């Protein structure tokens, strides 16, 4: 079974706060699911290429879309959605700190 520490490392990587109780249930659930999806490891790497998918490269002309841009008038609404707005700025936590 996946360890408690592994779950905590994953939570850190995934930027999730996870309670003690949930850590225990995640250990059980993630282990069960990994046992099931682990069947894929039986596939031999020689059997096929990695799937490039159905995507292909799509380019557009490098010109401003201007007023025909369907997203042209959304600036104010995007600003409106900011959790903490000051004028036209998004207020975020200070992340640059002095070296100790």
């Amino acid at each position, binding site marked *: 079974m996946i360890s408690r520490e592994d779950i905590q490392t994953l939570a850190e990587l995934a930027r999730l*706060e996870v309670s003690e109780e949930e850590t225990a249930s995640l250990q059980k659930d993630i282990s069960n699911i990994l046992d099931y999806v682990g069947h894929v490891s039986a596939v031999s790497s020689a059997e096929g290429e990695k799937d490039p998918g*159905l995507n292909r490269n799509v380019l557009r002309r490098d010109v401003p879309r201007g007023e025909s841009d*369907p997203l042209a008038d959304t600036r104010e609404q995007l600003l409106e959605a900011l*959790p903490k707005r000051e004028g036209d700025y998004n207020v975020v936590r200070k992340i640059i700190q002095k070296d100790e």
Partner: protein
Amino acid sequence: MSSDLSTLSITEAAKMLAAKEISAVDLARACITQIEKKNKSLNAYLEVFDDIEAQAKVADERHMKGESSPLLGIPLAVKDNILIKGRRASAASKILEGYVSTYDATVIKKLKDAGAVFLGRTNMDEFAHGSSTENSAFGPTKNPHDESRVPGGSSGGSAAAVAASMALGALGTDTGGSIREPASFCGLVGLKPTYGAVSRSGLIAMGSSLDQAGPLAQTVADAELIFNAIRGQDPLDSTSIGEAFYPKRVEKKKIGVPRHLLKEGVDPDVLKTFEATLATLALQGYEIIDIELPSAALALAVYYVIMPAEVSSNLARFDGVRYGLSLAGNSQWGDYAKTRGTGFGPEVRRRVMLGTYVLSSGYYDAYYGKATIARAMLRAEVRNALEIVDVIATPSAPSPAPRIGENISNPLAMYLLDIFTVTANLTGNPAISIPMGNVLRDGKALPVGIQFTAAHGDESGLFAIGTSAEAEKKLE
């Protein structure tokens, strides 16, 4: 005007609207009456819009001015992960608390141009993570055929709304079966189009190599009307393709059945109904051929590696910095972790963790790497099978609708409901679920669906066979 109007198919309603026998306002009012009667117990809509009649009036005016479109004035429900400008969108998650859409999804813009009337936002599993709509942060939706059962998911609200005559049709999204499985459980037609056939601009992304939007409707003809209105290439979604992208196919009247996948894990009544449906199609001149899809047995495992991997990446954007819920911790990391730990529900957290695991250094090759190889094999097998047959048939789901709560403590059991639907998402093929009959459970008739999968771009093949399967059912 009688509330019976709410039970009309889109095709019938469009005819009556065109003949001016009814107005769009009449239709809208009929649906509102049903919503007022049923939504409280079914919980299909998270929000019913307050301007439905005004929208319908505009449609009537457009009609008066001589406009005509099959969807002009048709009331539709919209899954809550599709953006409508100026309206709330939550993906049934607390993390999008207070979020108002800043633009129209391309599918919405196209439906607005066609004159559709939007009734409201429908309930779903949070971020479309689930097969029962029990993972909604706003309570489960109930199945109109038996309220002790789930409507399926994740587009369960859309399915319940149409099945209970609270809308004439609806939009859903399908990442691993989220349109087809609720269609099966609610007795509707549900289409997952070819990957790229419908623009995803303005959909809240789940698994970007898998997601498609599509219709839930009462009839194949209705599903086709909605599909034709929303399809097409879109500069805002570079994965979208035009109608001529894949070559046209000539119908061979051959149905392939991978019987080796049906040997275990399928409810005997579902299997019986499935075989009976195939037999009636054979009487209509379709040839039923056994086919083998050896890698399909791995499809669900492949899906539950690739999907959470993409989920963990797509949901990284919900960090409380730009929109939605924003909670303060005691550091930058603490802000993220608190916002996401509180805002996301248990299944979303589970999938994000699982995705983070399969993408993490040391495990990537064993899980994600192998899954992409198996996915390519599966795609080749499906392509080869579809050179011989027009469509591949399976039941849409291995059982009728489970009871509410039946699978909630066992995520893996819930995942197994997707066993027949995930393949089409992994391979990008279009697939449709058509009602094939009912099975009796505790004295209640529960609908079950048959799934057809066609070659890329061959939705018309699905509509053709779907119409045949549907005709059989009407004769019964």
